[in-house]
């Protein structure tokens, strides 16, 4: 198995520990990752999608062309990238007018979008292509006794129409829960499991409203399942949780801290990676949980 690693912006520039974790886990599980040299931002929602429908698709298509040239499907673990790339791909596949306009624009830079590369979420690749059994037999540390709150993230779920891989019922997501359970953790359901973390345009438009939304969710998580850790499949959720728990604690609006890891980081730790390299940039310290996982306490 071979995939083109689509990095986006937040992962390589703000949380490269997650990038390190990506480059660590897939080869260990028998999946080769190749770089998509010269790729850009997906582009994310506040940029080209808000300016020009065909222009959005064109920038996205240029990224896909790089994967097409290499004959690989795209792998990403950023929700925004997964959403933006999947949505444009779906539009281009189903709307010949958009596709023609995109290829007219791409023609000017000597490219053509053919649609031969799929857009895959790295967590789905773990679940479906690599499989729970292979993961179970590869890990060095199991998560027995650990309780996890899962945050699949909006773009892991909807609009289900545009994604290659779909939950049976996106309003009751199972994939991330089953992955966490496969490595020994408990990952119970909770009432706000599909609620948005409140980042993106909401956060950049009004930080206080974003924090209020997040506060509502993190308090429900604490009250309902009191987890050791939040685990997400989205790098944007990761940034929102990791940063906002700290802010709310400092403001005295919550009196607890729960660290957050991307599932890829958690798996890297379970496979024996150096925690400083795969989770060293978190601001809400996951050190205690990591020590517990590694049997160091």
């Amino acid at each position, binding site marked *: 198995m071979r995939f083109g690693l689509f990095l986006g912006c937040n992962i390589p520039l703000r949380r490269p520990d997650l990038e390190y974790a990506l480059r660590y886990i897939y080869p260990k599980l028998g999946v080769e990752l190749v770089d998509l040299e010269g790729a*850009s931002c997906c582009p994310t929602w*506040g*940029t080209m999608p808000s*300016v020009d429908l065909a222009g959005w698709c064109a920038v996205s298509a240029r990224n896909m062309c790089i994967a097409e040239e290499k004959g690989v499907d795209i792998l990403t673990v950023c929700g925004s990238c997964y959403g933006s790339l999947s949505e444009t791909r779906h539009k281009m596949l189903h709307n010949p007018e958009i596709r023609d306009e995109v290829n007219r624009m791409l023609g000017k830079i000597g490219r053509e979008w053919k649609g031969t590369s799929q857009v895959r979420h790295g967590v789905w690749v773990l679940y479906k292509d690599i499989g729970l059994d292979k993961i179970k037999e590869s890990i060095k540390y199991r998560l027995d006794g650990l309780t996890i709150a899962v945050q699949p993230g909006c773009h892991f779920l909807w609009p289900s129409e545009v994604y290659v891989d779909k939950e049976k019922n996106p309003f009751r997501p199972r994939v991330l829960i089953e992955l966490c359970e496969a490595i020994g953790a408990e990952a119970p359901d909770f009432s706000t499991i599909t609620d948005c973390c409140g*980042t*993106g345009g909401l956060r950049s438009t009004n930080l206080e409203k974003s924090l209020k939304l997040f506060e509502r969710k993190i308090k429900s998580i604490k009250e309902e399942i009191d987890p050791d850790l939040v685990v997400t499949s989205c790098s944007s959720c990761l940034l929102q949780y990791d940063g906002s728990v700290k802010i709310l604690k400092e403001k005295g609006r919550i009196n607890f801290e729960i660290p957050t890891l991307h599932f890829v980081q958690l798996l890297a730790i379970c496979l024996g990676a150096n925690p400083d390299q795969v989770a060293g940039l978190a601001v809400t310290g996951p050190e205690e949980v990591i020590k517990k996982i590694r049997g160091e306490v």
Partner: protein
Amino acid sequence: MDDDLPTPVILTELEKGVIEEIKEHGGENIDRCIQCGKCAGTCPVALAGFPWFNKRLIHALGLGIREEILDVPSPWACVSCNKCTEICPRDVKPFEVIFALRRVLVEELAIPTLTMEGLRTLYEYGHAVYQTTYPETRKKVGLPEKPPTTLAYPEALKELRALLRETKLDEVGLIPME
């Protein structure tokens, strides 16, 4: 006596114009909306307390209201989660309507500064989310200073810029594009 009856709401040419404008910008299914409110019930923007969430914006646009919502921040608070599109029983795709509205607002230059900044860094570096401190951050975890993106490949950045100049971003003239 007939003069006492309330005036029925009739879509004028101008009002139809607003719906057509939204359709042309990607909100094709706007007039399928029956205002059932399922989109609002799932919308983070509504839950966070913004006054102009999906259902209300669609209602206003359907009535031909345009000037009054040019400067409201709500359309820019949309997180693009698409839960509304998933749940809508009429296939309105509210997300597409909100984004069509954003494209209309951009043509009117009614756009928040952070959006401008994202577009500027997208053009300048190829990354909408850009951090000047990234080389040190990457070194800290033992990765090469530059990721293998447009940041490490100047030719690719040139190519991306040429492509962006083919899009409407160039026409609207929001950012300098040499």
